[in-house]
């Protein structure tokens, strides 16, 4: 059985009364219970806020907009609010995730340039890399170059980091710039020419900024839909 933990967030590790973003409250049979609500309780050992009333058997109840699910443990009851999605909604969500492409798109198309220097620089770039690559650049805001070493460099205009990839895996982020107020595309031309011809020099000039924390893409449930539906029904 899954729990909607999202409403039980806290910034305090000692006092449940200071929990934030809680619209509905959970309650336990004991005021110092730390197990009923899963991982969050591992950090919270203080009293639960009693918003309902104790019944004759000693269990705490709670109030909220809608309360639907009650899970029973060996010694006490506990609940969570009903923000849990219906089976239909969960199936729809799984379908949406399956249809969506599994790619994080992080591109910024080239904007309109008013500065004549930038327009000239773009003309030069078009001449250097050719019409097709330039069109890609306009759409994505970056160009990718395979250097002689086999590494692929993704170059951005201006002071953007150059990302280095090896077999599709990001290895490093490098920063090489043109000083003196050059238009952004001039920097890109410089990086493009250096990487293709003087990769070592480019790397020696560059300041290495390391990797960023990778974005983890949650994989949708890959089981057959019938199986998922059955298991969701069983839970509901």
């Amino acid at each position, binding site marked *: 059985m899954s729990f909607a933990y999202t409403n039980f967030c806290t910034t305090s590790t000692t006092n449940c009364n200071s929990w934030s973003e809680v619209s509905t409250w959970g309650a336990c049979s004991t005021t110092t219970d730390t197990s009923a609500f899963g991982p969050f309780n591992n950090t919270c050992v203080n009293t639960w806020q009693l918003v309902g009333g104790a019944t004759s058997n000693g269990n705490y109840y709670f109030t909220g907009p809608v309360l639907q699910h009650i899970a029973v443990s060996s010694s006490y009851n506990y609940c969570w609010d009903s923000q849990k999605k219906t089976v239909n909604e969960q199936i729809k969500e799984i379908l949406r995730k399956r249809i969506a492409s599994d790619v994080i798109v992080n591109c910024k198309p080239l904007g309109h340039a008013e500065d004549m220097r930038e327009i*000239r620089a773009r003309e030069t770039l078009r001449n250097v890399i050719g*019409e097709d690559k330039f069109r890609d650049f306009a759409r994505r805001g970056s160009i990718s170059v395979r250097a002689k070493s086999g590494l692929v460099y993704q170059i951005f205009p201006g002071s953007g980091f150059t990302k280095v990839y090896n077999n599709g895996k990001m290895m490093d982020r490098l920063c090489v710039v*043109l000083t003196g107020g*050059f*238009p952004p595309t001039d920097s890109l031309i*410089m990086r493009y020419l250096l990487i293709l011809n003087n990769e070592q020099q480019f790397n020696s000039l560059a300041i290495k900024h390391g990797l960023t924390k990778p974005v983890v893409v949650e994989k949708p449930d890959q089981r057959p839909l019938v199986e998922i539906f059955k298991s969701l029904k069983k839970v509901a």
Partner: protein
Amino acid sequence: MTAVENVIEVPLIQNSFVKETITISDKFKVLKDKEKISKGQHCFRFLTPKDGDKRVVWDSRDMNQIQEAKNMFDECVAKGFVPYRVGRDGKKTPEVMDEFDPDACEVVFLPIRQICGG
């Protein structure tokens, strides 16, 4: 439109504010915006902060201009520009030029003294 300057400024040493200049010969033409390179003309492109890209064209059929172009090429290299031969419309992979080649249609000059890590 402002008049086209016939000089190119380069830092005297790495990332310096003190500049030295390269004068463009009167025989050459500095292309204005929207002007196209005509047939028989070869082009030097300089990346400069002031212009973004300064395009100097010379006639590849005129021996005097070829000689002038060679002189200018040598002066630019001496003053910290690295020349890259590029093919028109990206048809050729850019490559560093060790010496002047009158057959190179397009040469991009990179101001190496203004490149640094960021």
